[in-house]
């Protein structure tokens, strides 16, 4: 996989994650709503950075769809947390590929590693809120 292909895939995921966090944030309250809002801001910034990384390579960043169909119904805090976990798991998977496709000591790899750490923290948070009894040992790893 070329780094451009991996970045394009990661951006496509980010568009979905950003849409999904709008749904998550609408169904959680208190500190979790704050967390969802902060995560949305972080993913907005990640999307913008991915666009620049793609454009630097002459790629054409995909634009977001106007809406996405959810993979799971969301009607309360638990199902919202479950969606949040799915979003971060998907982001982690895309970042694994960005890191694997990147050159050593490159900006792409540095960004990928930093974002993977951020997504892992959120992945654990949402999974535990949704009732998981364990932590993810290798976030992003292909199954």
């Amino acid at each position, binding site marked *: 996989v070329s780094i451009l292909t991996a970045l394009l895939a990661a951006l496509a995921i980010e568009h*979905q994650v950003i849409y999904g966090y709008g749904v998550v944030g609408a169904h959680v309250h208190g500190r979790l709503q704050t967390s969802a809002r902060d995560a949305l801001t972080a993913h907005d910034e990640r999307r913008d950075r991915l666009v620049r990384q793609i454009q630097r390579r002459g790629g054409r960043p995909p634009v977001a769809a106007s809406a996405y169909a959810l993979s799971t119904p969301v009607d309360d805090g638990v199902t919202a947390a479950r969606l949040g976990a799915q979003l971060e798991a998907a982001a982690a998977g895309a970042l694994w590929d960005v890191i694997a496709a990147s050159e050593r000591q490159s900006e792409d*790899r540095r960004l990928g590693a930093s974002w993977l750490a951020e997504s892992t923290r959120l992945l*654990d948070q949402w999974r535990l809120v949704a009732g998981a009894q364990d932590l993810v040992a290798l976030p992003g790893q292909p199954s």
Partner: protein
Amino acid sequence: MSDAVRPSRRVVLLGLLAVPLAACRGHHPGVRHRSAADPDAPALTAALAAERGLLADYDRARSARASAGGMPFDLFRATHAAHVQALESALNLPAASPSTGAPPTSTAPTSTAPSGPSLRGREADTGRSLTTWALGARQGKTAALLASIGAVHLAQSHLRFHRSGGPT
């Protein structure tokens, strides 16, 4: 790389507009590192030593019933056991090290057992080291593995739990 396309793991939401998603995988589960020729073997070996050290720390903390400081020792220990297995596999070492099994259940407390806060510090320190090794790895798959493990360490250094068991 000629990787199989597996978009299903990535597509958490189905786009109403078609989103071309070239989610190619950079990983061949059947291919292992060969430590003798692998330029990343030193980093993998250092990562493995760090993981084994953390496992030992968690075992001592549990045995001594050290103050958890909100840390679920068993949950965190389980991730490190998985890391040891992944790194042993990457280094093509014999699997099933006894140290990665179930934690010891009943031993006498020791005065040198690490506390919850000190384990958090160890998680953060090793997380930063793993990220550094990931940045310098020559092989992409090694970089991704080390970055993923490092991400877990960094996340676990921040994770806080309520008494009820949920995260804060």
